[in-house]
């Protein structure tokens, strides 16, 4: 049974300058515990798709099912890391991370401990009492990651969460994320523009095409974990996927298996 079932989703924005079809007829099944990565050119609709799954945006057509129930509104079962962080400037770093924990019914003490643990993971223990504007770009992104992970949700929706991190921090967070993913058996939808990152993390990589965003290609990644970004396997597959993104293939690459 699929954890998430995206069925024929289309999304039209009626902006100031006419309409834009951000997504067109996107269908996807994501099973429980899967780590799905979505890549695609800038502006192709990745964030939009994530927002629809989160329940933040209504699709123009189609439906999203989570556990076979129609997604109508956002909820703590589907935690989101936003592309712009969306941290609360009126709360300290610690309180930002604790924010979601009250809603899932944690006692105050547990909340503090859980938040401290995840802040430690993103190496921000030292900054726990600072306010958001006192953090660097990368630090903010890490707070956002900690906030979403701390809830330990069944579904984790991450929108380019690692885009502002240096290689070292990236590596350590990649590892942490995979550990958590395995430990709590969460289902992850992860958006990135970095193909290698996608391959390092994902069970499956979906390539979206631009305007309107459609599923252009799909890759199952069967490289054994832990994977390293500089591995030859990763590099080779990355080239293949990049070619798919560039559409250099003559034929439509429906399902290319790698192994």
């Amino acid at each position: 049974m699929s954890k998430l079932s995206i069925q024929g989703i289309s999304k039209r924005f009626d902006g100031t300058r006419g309409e834009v079809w951000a997504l067109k007829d996107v269908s996807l099944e994501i099973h429980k515990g899967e780590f799905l990565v979505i890549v695609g050119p800038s502006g192709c609709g990745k964030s939009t798709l994530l927002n629809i799954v989160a329940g933040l945006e209504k699709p123009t057509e189609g439906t999203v099912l989570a556990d076979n129930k129609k997604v109508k509104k956002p909820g703590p079962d589907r935690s989101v890391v936003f592309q712009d962080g969306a941290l609360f400037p009126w709360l300290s770093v610690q309180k930002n991370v604790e924010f979601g924990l009250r809603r899932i019914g944690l006692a105050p003490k547990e909340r503090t401990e859980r938040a401290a643990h995840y802040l430690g993971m993103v190496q921000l223990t030292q900054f726990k009492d600072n306010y958001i504007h006192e953090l660097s770009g990368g630090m903010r992104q890490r707070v956002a990651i900690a906030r979403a992970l701390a809830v330990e949700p069944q579904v984790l929706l991450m929108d380019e969460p690692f885009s502002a991190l240096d290689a070292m921090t990236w590596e350590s967070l990649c590892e942490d994320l995979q550990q958590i993913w395995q430990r709590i058996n969460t289902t992850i939808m992860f958006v990135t523009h970095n193909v290698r990152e996608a391959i390092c993390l994902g069970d499956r990589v979906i390539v979206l095409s631009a305007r309107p965003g459609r599923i252009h290609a799909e890759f199952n990644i069967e490289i054994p974990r832990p994977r390293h970004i500089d591995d030859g396997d990763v590099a080779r597959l990355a080239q293949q996927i990049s070619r798919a993104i560039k559409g250099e293939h003559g034929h439509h690459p429906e399902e290319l298996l790698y192994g």
Partner: protein
Amino acid sequence: MDKSWVRRIIFVVGLLLLWQLIAMSGLWNKTLFPGPLQVIQRLSAMVSDGSIFIATLVSLKRVLLGYGMALAVGIPLGILMARRDWLEQTLGMIVSGLQALPSICWLPLALLWFGLNDTAILFVVVMGSMVSIIVAVTDGVKNIPPTYVRAARTMGTWRLPLYTEVLLPASLPSILIGAKLGWGYAWRALMSGELLFVSLGLGHTLMMGRELADMSQVIAVMLIIMAIGLTADRAVFGTIENRFRQRWGLAKT
């Protein structure tokens, strides 16, 4: 800090001097435009017979009570109105209309509903300041970047916690603007309300000064009201503002 105080003092002293000079120049009739010395004399007379303290205390009590009630009702109502279309389309219409109504419109109704007592004055004060608080808060909440609400929702924040933990703090900047202006409105309304009956209070003292064409008294009361307003503005609102600006990183650039 030091330099700013020097500036302030120089400014106030300069103003007083200018005032005294104009008063002495005889440009305007002395009874109608008394100089600072006359006003200070009047003020000290009112101080020495204690009447001004009573008036100030009575008025302060009324304004604090009325303003407190206006805040207590206005802030939640303002937030709600920003979020519920049906409220905005019904109550919102009334609120927009009430904004322009002067306080004297409320006097007959206050009398009718509450009688000749402090409650009637309180009603006038609440009606005078609540509307501006509601308007400012409603607009403030509508101007909250949607991203905060979206983020809160994905963390399962709905209903009451959404209001108290997200909408309220996120619209704090606008709420403060509304609260500040509401404070001014409350005083203005109080001055009208205190005309309902002889109720001690600064409004009455002011009115007496006006009725008796005693401009020294009018100006003395004006100065007291200004002093109270200024103190509240700097001590209360200023402190809150500085704190939230620091947190939000809204330093001057």
